[in-house]
């Protein structure tokens, strides 16, 4: 009895929080007394339960009591806030619209950044999964290849116990012709893969066995979408698909490929199918993407350095005679999308620079919106001065007033968040269309994200509302109630700074947009070293082979008056080139290096208008040109160390698939066979018919429909059953810039919105200024001031601010955009005019915004404004 038991802590703390002083002690000691008795007389848990219940049953009542009066005040605050919204519809609209648009921008950017950062993080044990890539060093060059030899995966598994699983994926054969009964389709996302790929990466099997789907040759795992496409509602399992004339049995169906993986798939065939292919034991080829899952606890970086020379044990001697070094290293799976920019990536990698840029843009726009709010609230303080004075007279504390005004800004923030969500909901489909990025609104509705959004809204509301709240609550009732008008000029300096910052940001964004636009335009219009206009391209896919009959095919297709020329090639500019080691035969052995290769027939050089600087192009009459001669470009001349293209003629090269030794017969001027992001690299060209995969028709586009109909009919006759496809070289080539251009589009949209928000703020401020100066304007007019001079007077200060903003924005924008331009090997000079144009544009928009209010104020009849004096 004497031993005092401690009361249960949690309910005790609840009471402590809800009650004060005497009330608390009375309650807790009363129930404490009984609690002590119960502890002595009965089991402890009963006493505790009793205590808990006594507290819990009182909590609702206590809370109600506690907030009753606050609730009453909050009701009053809310009423006042809503009345203010109604009374000043214009201002409220500006506030909420500005905020909502700003937040919507931020949300979209948030979605984008999240999507980019989420790449390949969904895989199970993603931190243990890596890709192995290969750095091939020769004496003169050093190139990193993403795919490696097919021997790497088995070697890793047998030689290194740290590796749990290793799997290869082979995607190099291009698009596939898939046949289901009488329907043919091309599919791009086809790959061969090891069974173990399912252990390394995460695939969600819907049907079939994850353990043995790809163990046999000629088996195929399809995505849900493919299953739906080819089998609609029938059970695909056990069915067959014919892909490039080869039957595959469907052994599994997996969930559709997520958008955030670098290895996109639709059809996965077993690599067993290729087991007899001689390439499968080649240490020198680079064609297989190889993924590893390490055992738990293995340090990736350490292991990466251990395996760097894994090939030396097998082919070290050979490599030494060639003078090249194979250096392997690992890339963590989740870093691939943003940080791996090597040869033959599975898809164009993301750019981390854009993530930084967009994060900044989002932040900027939010800041602009916040500044707006601060600006308007402070400026309009005069309207609330009387209310504040009266509240103070009847006893409001400063803290209460701060609370009230903070609450108001929170209200605006939440309303805006609601509108922002609506805007995003409807803008996302549009944005996805416009930009080609696949964002999903649902990502915003996940509880965690939603919670942080609300948190963000609170933060923004606080940030924007704190300063006005302090200014408003600091009014002295005696002064404000007397009706002194000076209150509006409070914080004028700060307001000026805010407007200047807003416009500086806007100017920066505009300079950015203009620079991007100019760069993209430059890339599209730059002469590439060949004619890209009026070229109709027919890709030969799905195993069409024209090795034997390319001459007759060309003849057939050129039988139309609009077709001025036909040529066939292994690739066309912008469509990727292959890469082989090149040896200079004879003189010096150490001039071996790897170079890009391109193959075409004798009409290619004249049809594409590529200039020859030395020697000659392939000629039909010279039978030896067929598989017996090389052309190189100027870059290759330089890479071999020759000063003059003439020097190259007659030199013999050993290169190409299979390896042939032939003389160089000509040198072409450099032409851009890849996009302008990269320099023109050394290129070797050969007349090699079995590689031909593209037909290029030079056409006269005046009669396009007729020409197309002709080509289509010829195609049908030549390759019945194969879908007819065609594209134009110029649009196809430009599509290499699409990723960057899409980013530019998004940037442009944000710029526009940022400027729009800034103008909303300026509009509010201008109308406020005009309002506070009505009397002054009235007097000026009475004294004879013309309208023009009053408009000028009102606009002058805004002009000053915008000019100042330009001064700040120019160097900052130059700094950022200069760095962005460094992404491109061929780039524009930014030029002064971009800066001047942006400045003038912003100034004009600002003046236009202000002028509405200024003119309204200036033409007003002075009688109205001075009547009450």
């Amino acid at each position: 009895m004497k031993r005092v038991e401690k009361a249960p802590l949690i309910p005790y703390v609840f009471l402590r929080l809800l009650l004060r002083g005497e009330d608390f002690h009375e309650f807790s000691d009363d129930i404490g007394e009984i609690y002590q008795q119960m502890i002595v007389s009965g089991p402890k848990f009963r006493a505790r339960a009793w205590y808990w219940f006594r507290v819990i049953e009182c909590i609702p009542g206590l809370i109600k009591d506690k907030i009753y009066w606050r609730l009453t005040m909050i009701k009053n605050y809310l009423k006042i806030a809503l009345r203010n919204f109604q009374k000043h519809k214009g201002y409220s609209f500006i506030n909420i619209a500005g905020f909502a648009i700003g937040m919507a921008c931020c949300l979209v950017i948030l979605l984008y950044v999240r999507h980019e950062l989420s790449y390949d993080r969904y895989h199970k044990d993603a931190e243990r999964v890596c890709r192995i890539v290969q750095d091939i060093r020769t004496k003169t060059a050093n190139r990193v290849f993403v795919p490696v030899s097919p021997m790497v995966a088995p070697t890793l598994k047998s030689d290194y116990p740290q590796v749990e699983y290793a799997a290869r994926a082979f995607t190099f054969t291009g698009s596939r012709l898939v046949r289901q009964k009488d329907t043919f389709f091309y599919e791009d996302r086809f790959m061969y893969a090891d069974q173990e790929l399912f252990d390394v990466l995460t695939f969600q099997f819907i049907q079939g066995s994850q353990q043995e789907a790809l163990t046999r040759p000629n088996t195929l795992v399809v995505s849900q979408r493919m299953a739906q496409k080819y089998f609609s509602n029938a059970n695909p399992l056990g069915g067959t698909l014919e892909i490039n004339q080869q039957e595959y049995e469907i052994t599994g169906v997996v969930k559709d490929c997520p958008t955030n993986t670098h290895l996109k798939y639709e059809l996965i065939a077993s690599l067993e199918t290729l087991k007899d292919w001689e390439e499968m034991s080649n240490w020198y080829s680079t064609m297989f993407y190889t993924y590893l899952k390490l055992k738990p606890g293995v340090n990736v970086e350490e292991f990466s350095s251990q395996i760097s020379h894994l090939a030396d044990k097998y082919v070290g001697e050979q490599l030494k005679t060639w003078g090249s070094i194979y250096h392997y290293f690992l890339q963590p799976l989740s870093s691939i999308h943003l940080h791996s920019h090597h040869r033959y990536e599975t898809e164009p990698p993301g750019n981390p620079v854009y993530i930084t840029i967009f994060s900044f843009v989002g932040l900027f726009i939010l800041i602009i919106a916040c500044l707006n709010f601060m600006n308007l609230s402070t400026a309009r303080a005069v309207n609330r001065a009387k209310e504040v004075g009266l509240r103070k007279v009847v006893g409001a504390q400063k803290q209460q007033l701060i609370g009230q005004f903070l609450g108001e800004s929170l209200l605006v923030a939440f309303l805006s968040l609601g509108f922002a969500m609506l805007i995003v909901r409807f803008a996302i489909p549009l944005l996805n269309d416009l930009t080609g990025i696949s964002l999903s609104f649902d990502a915003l509705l996940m509880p965690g994200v939603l919670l942080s959004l609300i948190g963000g809204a609170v933060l923004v509301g606080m940030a924007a509302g704190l300063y006005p709240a302090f200014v408003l609550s600091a009014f002295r009732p005696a002064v404000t109630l007397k009706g002194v008008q000076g209150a509006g000029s409070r914080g004028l300096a700060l307001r000026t700074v805010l407007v200047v910052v807003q416009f500086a940001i806007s100017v920066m964004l505009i300079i950015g947009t203009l620079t991007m636009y100019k760069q993209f335009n430059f890339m599209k219009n730059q002469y590439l070293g060949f004619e890209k206009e009026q070229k109709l391209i027919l890709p030969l896919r799905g195993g069409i082979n024209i090795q034997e009959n390319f001459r007759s095919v060309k003849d057939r297709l050129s039988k139309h008056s609009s077709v001025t020329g036909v040529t066939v090639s292994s690739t066309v500019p912008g469509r990727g080139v292959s890469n082989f080691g090149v040896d200079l035969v004879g003189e010096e052995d150490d001039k071996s290096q790897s170079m890009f290769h391109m193959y075409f027939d004798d009409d290619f050089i004249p049809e594409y208008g590529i200039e020859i600087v030395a020697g000659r192009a392939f000629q039909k009459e010279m039978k030896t040109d067929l598989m017996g001669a090389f052309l190189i470009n100027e870059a290759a001349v330089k890479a071999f160390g020759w000063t003059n293209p003439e020097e190259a003629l007659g030199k013999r090269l050993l290169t190409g698939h299979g390896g042939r030794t032939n003389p160089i017969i000509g040198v072409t001027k450099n032409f851009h066979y890849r996009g302008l992001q990269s320099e023109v690299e050394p290129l070797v060209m050969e007349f090699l018919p079995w590689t031909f995969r593209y037909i290029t028709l030079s056409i006269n586009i005046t009669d396009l429909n007729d020409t197309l109909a002709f080509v289509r009919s010829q195609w049908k006759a030549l390759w019945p059953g194969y879908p007819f496809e065609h594209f134009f070289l110029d649009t196809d080539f430009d599509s290499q810039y699409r990723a960057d251009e899409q980013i530019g589009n998004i940037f442009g949209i944000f710029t526009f919105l940022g400027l729009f928000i800034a103008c909303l703020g300026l509009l509010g401020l201008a109308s406020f200024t005009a309002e506070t100066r009505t009397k002054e304007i009235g007097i000026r007019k009475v004294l004879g001031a013309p309208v023009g001079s009053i408009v000028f007077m009102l606009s002058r200060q805004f002009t000053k601010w915008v000019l100042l903003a330009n001064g700040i924005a120019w160097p900052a924008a130059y700094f950022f955009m200069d760095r962005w331009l460094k992404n491109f090997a061929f780039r524009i000079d930014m030029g002064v005019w971009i800066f001047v144009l942006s400045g003038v544009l912003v100034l004009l928009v600002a003046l236009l915004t202000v002028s509405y209010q200024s003119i309204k104020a200036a033409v007003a009849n002075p009688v109205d404004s001075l009547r009450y004096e």
Partner: protein
Amino acid sequence: MRLLSRAEEIILLAIFKLEGNAYGVPIRDRIHKDIGQHWSFGVIYKTLKKMSAKKYVRKIASRPVAERGGRSRYYYEITPQGISALKEIRQVHSSVWNRVKHLSLEKKGE
């Protein structure tokens, strides 16, 4: 004067019957004995607080009590206003029930 509410009436009567021993714990026990329900302490304190404000009861802090860790108990005592309020409510009760002879709401079978 406003009439007592039912809760006020019950609590006041409990204090009255406890004759000087009326603090939270016994008040609640008394109410349980009188009406057969366990009231929450919150309701009791809230009502007491209201009645203190209306001067029907007076709150008196006792000498420090060892069982309560050296803090006071808070006893309640009815004031003359409280007594007259009780009288009034009894008056009201008897007059409103006066003519009710056959209350067929209960025990109809009897």
